[in-house]
């Protein structure tokens, strides 16, 4: 009995040992030098192997990152901390590298945009676009035939009322839809951006007015009212510089054509902690919008109506009493 057990253990053990030694030797002998960065990047990834980055698993993505052919924020599963880690490994600045999301810059639903003719051709935006600049009166409008939805790897795009809609929670900002759209109306914006220009029409005001209820006529009011100077008119269309934009929403409010969308839940304002405030008036002086009230040596207050969330006061406060919080009162 004991002999049998010993023999079995001995035979398998000996086999294992021999193969182990041989393989160890072989791995030395046949060692392939790989970029050590690949291993480091691979370890810093979440390891979900979901393939949402467009590479075959985390190994493929790690290799692409190490070779510089993929961006470090290309992994949609990574938390911002993990992206920062990747940045450290690759020596890339991660600050300001914000996750993006795709947006459709058109609101030309059947209700808003007038139709030129009834299209009954094949279900393909590129084909429809060839036929007299599309079936909608506006030649910049979304045709809603779903070319973008077809290329979307995560099924984030649906067509609602003949206009593509993007599910922000699903979007991984791969940019495939933007490349596919024959009209170029899909763009990528930072996830935190609350204010989005929803029109791409560069035609003359009257022409746009006739074609669509919510088309941009290039009046430039948004650029004028922007307290941060973040909007610039390019080709009769506003372009928002999201580095400057503070999500105050004034442009969306003042737009006469309602072609700027605004997410109110992202509006922010400065809030002064009254227990910490020493009444130095530094914040009041820093505010360009007259939004802070209060005399010297008294507690200061922020007027939510006037505050645009520019954060200029935050760094000026000597006692760190000011924080940015969601602005619900406006």
């Amino acid at each position, binding site marked *: 009995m004991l002999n*049998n057990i010993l*023999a*079995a253990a001995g*035979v398998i053990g000996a*086999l294992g040992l021999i193969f182990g030694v041989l*393989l160890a030797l*072989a*791995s030395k002998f046949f060692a*392939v030098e790989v970029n050590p960065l690949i291993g480091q990047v691979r370890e810093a990834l979440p390891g979900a192997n979901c393939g949402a980055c467009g590479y*075959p698993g985390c190994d493929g993505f790690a290799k692409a990152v190490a070779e510089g052919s993929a961006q470090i924020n290309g992994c949609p599963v990574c938390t911002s901390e993990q992206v920062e880690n990747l940045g450290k490994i690759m020596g890339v600045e991660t600050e300001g590298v914000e996750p993006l999301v795709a947006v459709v810059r058109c609101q030309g639903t059947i209700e808003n945009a007038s139709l030129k003719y009834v299209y009954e051709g094949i279900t393909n935006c590129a084909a429809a676009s060839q036929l007299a600049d599309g079936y909608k009166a506006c030649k910049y409008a979304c045709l809603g035939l779903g070319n973008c939805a077809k290329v979307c790897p995560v099924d984030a795009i649906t067509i609602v009322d003949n206009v593509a809609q993007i599910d922000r929670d699903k979007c991984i900002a791969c940019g495939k839809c933007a490349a596919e759209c024959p009209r170029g109306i899909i763009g990528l914006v930072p996830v935190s951006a609350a204010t989005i220009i929803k029109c791409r029409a560069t035609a003359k005001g009257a022409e746009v007015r006739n074609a669509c209820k919510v088309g941009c006529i290039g009046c430039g009011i948004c650029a004028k009212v922007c307290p941060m100077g973040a909007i610039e008119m390019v080709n009769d269309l506003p372009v928002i510089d999201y580095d400057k934009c503070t999500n105050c929403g004034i442009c969306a409010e003042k737009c006469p054509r309602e072609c700027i969308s605004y997410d109110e839940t992202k509006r922010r304002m400065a809030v002064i902690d009254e227990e910490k405030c020493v009444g130095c008036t530094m914040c009041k002086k820093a505010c360009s919008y007259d939004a802070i009230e209060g005399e010297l040596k008294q507690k200061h207050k922020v007027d939510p109506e006037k505050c645009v969330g520019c954060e200029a006061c935050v760094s000026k406060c000597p006692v760190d009493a000011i924080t940015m919080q969601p602005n619900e009162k406006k």
Partner: protein
Amino acid sequence: MEGVQNIVMIVISAALVNNFVLSRFLGICPFLGMSKKIETAIGMSAAVTFVMALASVFTWIVQKLLLQPLWLVKFGVAADKVPDLMYLQTIAFILVIAALVQFVEMLIQKTNPSLYSALGVYLPLITTNCAVLGVVLINMQSEFTLVESLFNGVGAALGFSIALILFAGVRERLDDADIPKPFKGFPIALISAGLLSIAFMAFQGLAG
């Protein structure tokens, strides 16, 4: 001369009549997984051939040297006292195959990186490939000699390669074919595999 005839028979039998994939239905995983492109199918075939041939030789040695050490009789051990470790056959053979696959993997990574990346996850999967284990177990069952084992392994691998490459060719054509929607992709691949298997039944007549 009779030896050569015997070996030719073994190779033909393993490659065509008892084709591993299409008659014995072993190694279906790589057969379906690696058959999308002829190029990768050829690479996979080469890897499997290499592993099968080596595994046949090494498992034969392990079997005769360790599991059924009848050579001990020559050294004065009574025939009924020779330890019989046949119950270790499966685990010992898997150990041999796994080690071989590891070795082949290193070799390919060193010598042919593009083939290595094309084979991807299927190379390690040969480790638990039932076709390889099937070959070595059949070798032992049929009580082949070392040379016969080697050729049975090569023949089996040849059969596997024929099936895989033929099927890859079929699937490359299927990609461009106008296939009804419910059959697109995997379903039509499975149906074609079945048809291919029926075609290989014709070789049964060779043995008769």
